[in-house]
């Protein structure tokens, strides 16, 4: 194992925390400062035919990708072994489901980007932050798929004993940069760009992720509110 340099410490210890701070404080600031800008900024009105396929493809894809990352990064190897899932089975499951979800996400995203670039109406409604966000998402997703195919499909790199350990260490506040120094470059880049994406997240339309309207399921259909801010609407709808 190569020695841990200052750069390694900066990249794998300092940088994640800085980005995490941006992510958390950024969201708090944006939520308080900018309720009006907190929206999906849907462009469905302008164009529907590509969106109809690309948007669900991307969104459902990335939801599964998120679940997969949770499984791979958060759940320790020993736990899955303990419930009798052999490493081989786990590996097969992870690369099949992961690759499918990843490719869905990437293809959906590329379609969405192409849709935006090819339609002047959409370009007119695209902000600078949107462009930056699309670029970041594409790079993260591209590197992720590439890293998986290069190291897991055509290899058997065991990220669960390096990257995952380092990831959990971040949350226990004892990150060890040594865990990351020998990780394949593609994974390193994927992780770094993803961390950067989290830092800019609160400043993009990605904030809409935190507005997933699950409350709708438990809410009465008709909402009443009082004109008077100080009076809470007394009558619930149905």
């Amino acid at each position, binding site marked *: 194992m190569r020695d841990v340099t200052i750069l390694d410490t900066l990249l794998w210890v300092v940088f994640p925390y800085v980005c995490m701070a941006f992510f958390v404080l950024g969201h708090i600031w944006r939520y308080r400062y*900018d309720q009006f*800008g907190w929206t*999906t900024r849907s462009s*469905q009105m302008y164009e529907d035919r590509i969106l109809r396929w690309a948007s669900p493809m991307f969104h459902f894809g990335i939801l599964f990708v998120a679940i997969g990352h949770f499984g791979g990064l958060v759940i320790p190897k020993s736990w899955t072994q303990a419930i009798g899932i052999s490493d081989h089975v786990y590996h097969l499951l992870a690369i099949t489901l992961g690759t499918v979800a990843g490719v869905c996400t990437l293809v959906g995203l590329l379609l969405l980007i192409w849709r935006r670039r090819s339609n002047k109406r959409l370009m007119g409604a695209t902000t600078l932050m949107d462009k930056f966000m699309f670029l970041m998402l594409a790079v993260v997703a591209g590197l992720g798929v590439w890293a998986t195919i290069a190291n897991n499909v055509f290899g058997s790199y065991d990220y669960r004993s390096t990257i995952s350990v380092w990831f959990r260490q971040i949350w226990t506040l004892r990150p060890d940069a040594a865990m990351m120094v020998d990780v394949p470059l593609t994974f390193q880049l994927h992780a770094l760009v993803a961390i950067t994406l989290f830092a800019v997240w609160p400043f993009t339309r990605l904030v809409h992720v935190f507005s997933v309207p699950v409350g709708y399921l438990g809410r009465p259909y008709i*909402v009443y509110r009082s004109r*008077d801010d100080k009076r809470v609407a007394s009558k619930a709808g149905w």
Partner: protein
Amino acid sequence: MRIMAQMSMVMNLDKCIGCHTCSVTCKQAWTNRSGTEYVWFNNVETRPGQGYPRRYEDQEKWKGGWVLDRKGRLKLKAGGKFRKLAQIFSNPIMPSIEDYYEPWTYDYSNLLDAPAQEHIPVAKPKSLLTGEDMSIEWSANWDDDLGGSTEHLHEDPILERIQTEVKAEFEKTFMFYLPRICEHCLNPSCVASCPSGAMYKREEDGIVLVDQDQCRGWRMCISGCPYKKVYFNHRTGKAEKCHFCYPRMEQGIPTVCSETCVGRLRYLGLVFYDADRVTEAASTPNEKDLYEAQRSLILDPNDPAVVQAAREADIPEDWILAAQRSPIYRLINEWKVALPLHPEYRTMPMVWYIPPLSPVVDEVAKTGEDAEDQRNLFAAIEQLRIPMDYLAELFTAGDVSVVDGVLRKLAAMRSYMRDISMGREGQEEIAASVGMTGQEIREMYRLLAIAKYEERYVIPPAHYSDAHSLEGISTDCSLNTDGGPGMGGPSSIFGEDSGADGLTPVGVENFNILKNRAQMDRVPPVEPGRINLLNWDGKGTPDGLFPSDSSGTDRS
């Protein structure tokens, strides 16, 4: 019983001349901003016609409003909550901009700048979405006055439903105008469709609003509203809709569309209704009974029990008095001449219409017979099936007998008052033939024909403990600071108007905002420094509106 007050409107279609003043003044007041170019909180449709957006009444396509499930319970036609959430990434039944129209402006500078040439220079239409040349193919009023109807008329969803073979002859038959605003329904399906809970019905006056801060742009309200009166601001990514001019109404001033109506055909007032029974009424099994069911929700404001209940529900005393003087109550429940628009959508709409007698009168007049004679009018009402069926499809879910009854009352009023204006005695039997008295007819005539301002609009001002925030533009308004709204412009990095200084449409009455708005039309370059005249409020001299003088300094 749970008594609630509802601000409502009635429009007397007989008096609408289709001048579009309501639409234009409304637009100037509320939607002269980029992102809302295609948004008409108020629009006037020629009927028969497709309406705006195109064929919005075709609910088999758009799936707005409510339907009953197999057990007879109300459900959203577009599907339940789970289905809505599953479709959140791409709403399959949302109208696209083509279903409205692509907004445009004209390149007027070409008229001034074009070099001497053989042909007269023209102001080419430029798309406000792309800034490029475009050909205008549709707009909010493309089929105004039956224009192009030989091509488009068969697409009127109502004509399709009444299946008359006489469609081709409609032009000889009838035409009338239908001004439309948000219905401020008692059972609003847009509110029920909003995943974020940003849409709500105000307890005090029943006005349905979108909380601009809470709207997250999921777009379900647009599909949910069967009248397609919730619009998507494509710049801010938020839903906007007619808010019944609540900043005006709270001060006791009529809505802009009412105030500026040339025909003085709009009535504003309160009704009290029993909120506990709304769901039950909206679930009435037979569509044709929905009109009566909704009417039965509306309570008699002169009934002492109702007054008592209103007091217990903290409804202020002057609101109770206003409800007793309400023109709406009289038109809907006393004289029963106003009808709801499309009750079959089961949203319990609260903008009602007095159906037009004029198609019938015109038809009688064409024959050379006396069009004010009650017998001729009654005979015509019985015979003219096409307009009757059409009106019934609009106002009573197809029940012709209700429309028939209303038109007979209007015809009786015409004949009865003719005698009086000719200096003769009013004939009581004419009034009696429609179940009214001469006195009632005269009162109805006064409200409908004389239509005094203070009788048309009975609007009690709002009572508030939060007076500060209701001073139109409140004193702590952050918009007044340097670098306030619009300073970021549409390219403000999070999207238009984001930030604490962001605008809600209500604030648009502020001059500075309008000025910024006027200059903000920076959709891909319509040349820097150019003004979109559509969005200009007529005040001030924004940069680029006038050429700079010889010294090179700008006049503004």
